[in-house]
């Protein structure tokens, strides 16, 4: 290992990067776009409110009061539907996914139950819904819980089973704060993987690797300078993302030595994978496709964008063999939960993986024989 050679290589690669304005723009802009896009989505999820259409066929004081109760629940933004229209047709025509219909005779039945204590007096609320909508089931579940609460209140008895929420965190975190570490992990992965595959394939195709093999630079010098280069880019990208996250979303994240350490392990792992891929990718044109085949499953199955608990059981098990999963978990352990022990365990998992693929990558990199 020759530090002078490594630094010479690093200078050339950073200079090339600096002068390639398009690459530089996308390296910095891509993670910012992701943060802003997903951050905005998740910020609004923290204060989620569903749109609910209500058709009050009873048009009495009691039915109006019940609609107001739904509104005051805070989960729904109510749109009133004219009692004269056909609710089913309304769902079809207005592209809404649910209309709650309060039947005629609502107040009369309510009076019978409350005043006359007639337990046979009951009202059927109808949900007219579009089953193809993904959010309709959630809406109906919330409505059922509200109706159950009203029924329980009308019984006059205190509930037997109560529940209380206790977070394991010392303070309330927003989804964006879980999301930012995931994006940092994804960003370092894509930078390392794509840059290694793209640039090494191009340099090999152009014969630059062959020229370098006639100089004293060794394969190890070359690979270490690549790692250092990717690490610097990943750190720049991470700092940019954190600054945007703090400025736009006022995130509250804990930053310590684990952050650069996990970025370094992330870079090592995916530069290693990139080097192995480069061994098999002959043309620069197929390099991006090869890198995508690795990065896309990692992005969507390792819990970077959404919790793996939302995935089917077998995919959850699969997530545990993905290296990016341990980077995500490790970064969240250190930045969100401030749990050093968990971070240590995750760093060990990704560290072992990175070491193995990096060594395989060194052997896979063809340096002599014209590379």
């Amino acid at each position, binding site marked *: 290992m020759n530090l*002078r*050679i490594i*630094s010479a290589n690093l*200078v050339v690669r950073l200079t*090339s990067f600096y002068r390639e304005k398009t690459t530089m723009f996308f390296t910095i802009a891509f993670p910012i776009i992701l943060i802003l896009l997903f951050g905005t989505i998740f910020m609004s999820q923290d204060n989620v409110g569903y749109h609910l259409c209500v058709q009050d066929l009873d048009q009495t004081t009691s039915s109006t009061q019940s609609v107001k109760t739904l509104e005051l629940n805070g989960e729904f933004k109510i749109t009133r539907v004219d009692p004269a229209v056909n609710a089913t047709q309304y769902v079809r025509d207005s592209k809404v996914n649910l209309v709650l219909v309060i039947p005629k005779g609502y107040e009369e039945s309510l009076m019978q139950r409350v005043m006359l204590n007639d337990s046979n007096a009951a009202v059927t609320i109808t949900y007219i819904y579009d089953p193809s909508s993904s959010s309709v089931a959630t809406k109906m579940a919330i409505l059922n819980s509200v109706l159950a609460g009203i029924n329980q209140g009308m019984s006059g008895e205190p509930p037997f089973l109560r529940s209380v929420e206790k977070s394991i965190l010392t303070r309330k975190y927003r989804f964006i704060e879980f999301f930012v570490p995931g994006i940092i992990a994804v960003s370092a992965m894509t930078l390392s993987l794509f840059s290694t595959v793209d640039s090494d394939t191009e340099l090999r195709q152009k*014969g630059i690797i062959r*020229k370098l093999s006639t*100089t*004293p630079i060794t394969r190890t010098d070359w690979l270490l300078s690549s790692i250092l280069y990717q690490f610097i880019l990943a750190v720049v990208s991470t700092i940019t993302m954190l600054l945007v996250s703090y400025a736009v979303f006022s995130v509250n994240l804990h930053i310590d030595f684990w952050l650069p350490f996990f970025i370094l392990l992330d870079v090592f792992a995916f530069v290693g994978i990139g080097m192995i891929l480069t061994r098999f990718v002959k043309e620069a044109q197929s390099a991006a496709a090869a890198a995508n085949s690795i990065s896309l499953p990692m992005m969507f199955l390792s819990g970077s964008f959404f919790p793996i608990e939302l995935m089917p059981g077998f995919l959850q098990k699969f997530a545990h063999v993905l290296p990016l999963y341990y980077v995500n978990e490790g970064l969240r352990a250190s930045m969100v939960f401030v749990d050093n022990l968990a971070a240590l365990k995750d760093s060990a998992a990704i560290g072992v993986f990175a070491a193995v693929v990096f060594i395989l990558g060194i052997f896979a990199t063809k340096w002599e024989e014209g590379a």
Partner: protein
Amino acid sequence: MTNEAEHIIEVEYLTKRYGELLAVNGISFTVRKGEVFAFLGPNGAGKTTTVEIIETIRTPTSGNVRLLGMDVTKKKRDIVPRIGVLPQGFNSFDRITVRETLQYYSRLFCRGKADIDGLIELVNLKDKTREQYKNLSGGLKQRLGIAIALVNDPEVVFLDEPTTGLDPVARREVWEVLLGLKEKGKTVFLTTHYMEEAELLADAVAIISRGKIIAMGSPRELIENNAKYLLLTLQSTDEKICTVVRNMGFEPVHANHKNIKVRVAQTDDVLEILNGIKGAGASFLSVDVRKPNLEEVFLQLTGEALRAAPPATVAT
């Protein structure tokens, strides 16, 4: 035991096989210190494979190759700092300037005090030092490649087809640089398929065809030993000339509607042909008689080799 002062490169029975393909077939030659050695051959003859084995980039299948007195398969680390290489189809980093590129390669050789300005002057790139590589023309890129090959002040310089793909002006510019190297007394190993280049620059020439060396010597020796004839060229638009020459028992080696080329053994044959043409009432515009050049020798030799060699033996 190698006498390094005499032979900087020694190749003995070198063979390189890629699966079933025999790229280099048991060749042997030596290169003396301070000479420009041209390795000539058509595309796919085995030139680049041979030079890359000597440069330590490839490993031979069999045979011995010694460079600067060292075995190329065992002493790569010792050899590399002492040689300079311009590989075939040389390329460099697109966004790096001429000066930065030279500084980069100089640092790879750990030569902090390399004479970058001297190299820039040598290859005549003084007004291009701040130009990025991607903006250079083909000729300028090759000149930069030659400067890079010299950045470590090497004892041997390998130039693999340094003028391929260049226009005639750019080619002549590169030749100027190579003549400068020759004047400096550098040992240069030049592979090319341009005979004119070898004739102009080389002290010694080896001609390789289908992985085998078919002739070796100085350009003058090769011409004298392999082309004992004169080349008569007649410029004419008279179609009768070709028939007249054939009827006189001379077979044209090249004929079209403008030129006819005939190999003749002696000057008397020239007079005989000219008199014959005059007697037949045919006319010509001009006449040129000269000794054959290396190109004609090469065509003659490789033509014979192609006819003699079995078709299964093919070089890269």
